[in-house]
Each structure stands twice: as structure tokens, then as C-alpha cells.
């Protein structure tokens, strides 16, 4: 599979338990919320350990790929206000509504503003990937007249994206809530 873009790569190859976890914790402390780390490990126990660690620390475990003996774990640092952030964009559709819209109109644009690693493991087929942080520089990839449904994991980042797109003159942008965290429709991913 192609390389997944991350903010930091941490080499834990050859290290035994509990070193991969300890090093991951230390590296994660240096990251900004929303950033993604790739932890490379050869310790087979790290697969279960990293998942348990993410669950207990509240960070988001995205997935793991395997290349030979090396396990690559992808984790996104959570931010404390991610779930609490005040939502302001007035046009909102639910997951179910988006599902129906997609079923009836294949031309609907779904814009996924999560990080590339999140998109890589689990996405709506056909969704366009532009991470929130890249939206400004890649604006010309979108059409101001299109119906655009913006999605992220919980509706917070996509809300910011919607507000900003509306300011840039996009007329028909809608925020999808809650987003991929509870998406029950078809998905695809690099596994």
C-alpha cells in the first residue's frame, strides 16, 4: 500500500515491551492535537498494546499495516475540546440523510477533511480527501457551485471547514453529523 502521510514517524523496531508504549507516550506528548504518529515496531505484542493504550489515554487508534516483520501503527492525538467545540455552520445533514442523498444522486461531492491516515484506513467510497489544514492551499480542487457534504470523525473539523468554505463563497456546503465515527454505510480502506 502507498505511504500514509503522518506528522511524525517513531522507530521502535527491535524494542521489547514496554518500550514501544513508553516511547509512543513520550513522542505523543510532543505532538499537537490532531496530529498523527506512525509507530514502527517489531514487537508483535505491540498490536494489542497500542490499541489498549489508545483506548485508555483517549487518543484515536486508526489502524495498523504490516510490512514484512514491521508493524506500523497509526494513532491520532486527540484534543480535549474536539467533542465540545461549539458548532456554528447552519446547514447540517445527518449520516442517514447523506446516505439517502448519495443513493439518489451519484454526483454529490463528499469532502473528507480528516488526516490522510484516518482517510486511508476507513472512508466513504468516492470521498475526496483534503485535510482541514490543507483546505486553503487546495481550494481550487473544489467547485463553488457544487453540493458539497463535508465529513470528519465527529463533525467538529468538518464544521470549521464548512464555515470557512461558506466564507470563500461556496453556496451549498453542508456539515455531516456526527460523521465517520458512526457511519454505518459502505466504507473502504487500505488494509
Amino acid at each position, binding site marked *: 500500500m502507498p505511504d500514509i502521510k503522518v506528522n511524525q514517524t517513531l522507530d521502535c523496531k527491535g*524494542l*521489547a*515491551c*514496554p518500550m514501544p*508504549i*513508553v516511547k509512543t507516550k513520550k513522542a505523543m506528548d510532543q505532538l499537537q492535537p490532531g496530529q498523527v504518529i506512525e509507530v514502527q515496531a517489531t514487537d508483535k505484542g505491540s498490536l494489542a*498494546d497500542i490499541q489498549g493504550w489508545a483506548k*485508555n489515554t483517549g487518543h484515536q487508534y486508526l489502524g495498523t499495516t504490516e510490512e514484512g516483520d514491521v508493524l506500523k501503527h497509526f494513532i491520532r492525538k486527540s484534543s480535549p475540546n474536539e467533542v465540545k467545540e461549539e458548532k456554528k455552520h447552519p446547514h447540517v445533514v445527518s449520516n442517514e440523510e447523506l446516505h439517502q442523498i448519495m443513493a439518489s444522486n451519484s454526483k454529490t461531492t463528499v469532502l473528507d477533511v480528516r488526516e490522510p491516515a484516518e482517510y486511508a484506513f476507513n472512508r466513504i467510497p468516492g470521498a475526496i480527501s483534503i485535510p482541514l489544514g490543507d483546505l486553503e492551499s487546495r481550494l481550487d480542487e473544489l467547485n463553488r457551485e457544487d453540493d458539497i457534504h463535508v465529513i470528519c470523525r465527529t463533525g467538529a473539523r468538518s464544521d470549521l471547514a464548512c464555515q470557512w468554505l461558506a466564507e470563500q463563497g461556496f453556496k451549498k456546503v453542508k456539515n455531516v453529523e456526527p460523521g465517520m465515527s458512526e457511519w454505518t454505510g459502505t466504507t473502504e480502506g487500505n488494509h
Partner: protein
Amino acid sequence: MSTKVAIIASNGGLFDAYKVFNIATASAATEAEVAIFFTFEGLNLIHKQAHHQLPLPAGAEHIAEGFKNANIPGIPQLVQMAQELGVKIIACQMTMDVMNLTKEDFIDGIEVGGAVTFLDFAKDANVTLTF
């Protein structure tokens, strides 16, 4: 509130040290609050000299090579990591008195206390372990 992990270390072999410090560092790295009470032979695990050369169980000496091959970190390294991660190390005053040891015989950054010092921490711990 974060998870609290209370550990009693009462044995002084190399295997005992790994059980204690692996669980302690893994817990602390998972943002748990961790305290270890070292008592009786467990004091070896934090003794300045002794913790560098902890004995393997009789008959298991050949396993030393296994530790090396699997690239397992040394006990001094694990102890240092535990301290960096904020693991609280408490040496048992009573055992120290019996063995005629002082705080200076142990690694830096430890506390010395009695049973109640540990109990005060352990009374509302989510996980309590004895090694």
C-alpha cells in the same frame, strides 16, 4: 480521574524486577498514577548496587541469553524510565531498619515510608498487584 496502580514488590530476583517495572512503566505510560512499595527482598530492586546485578532463579541462569537476544532493556534503564514517567517509589522503613540500610543506599528520588504511606495511596487504587 486517572487510573491508580498500587504495586508491592517483595522479592529480589531479576524476574521479579521485570514483572514490577514492566507493569509500572506500561501503566505510567498509559497515564496511570503508579506507586510501588518495596519491602523485604524487594528492596534489592532499588538498591544502588544490587539492582545492577539481580540474580536469576537457580537453574534459570541460561535465560540471561534470552533477555539479551530479545533486546530486553536492562533493569537500571527501566527504573530510570519509571522515574521519568513519574512512578512513585517507596522504600519500606521497617525493612531498612532490620537490614541496617539508609536512604543513601538506594537510587535517588525515592521516598521512605511505612505501611500507611503505601496504604494511603493504595486505598482507592483501581489495580493492586503484589510481586
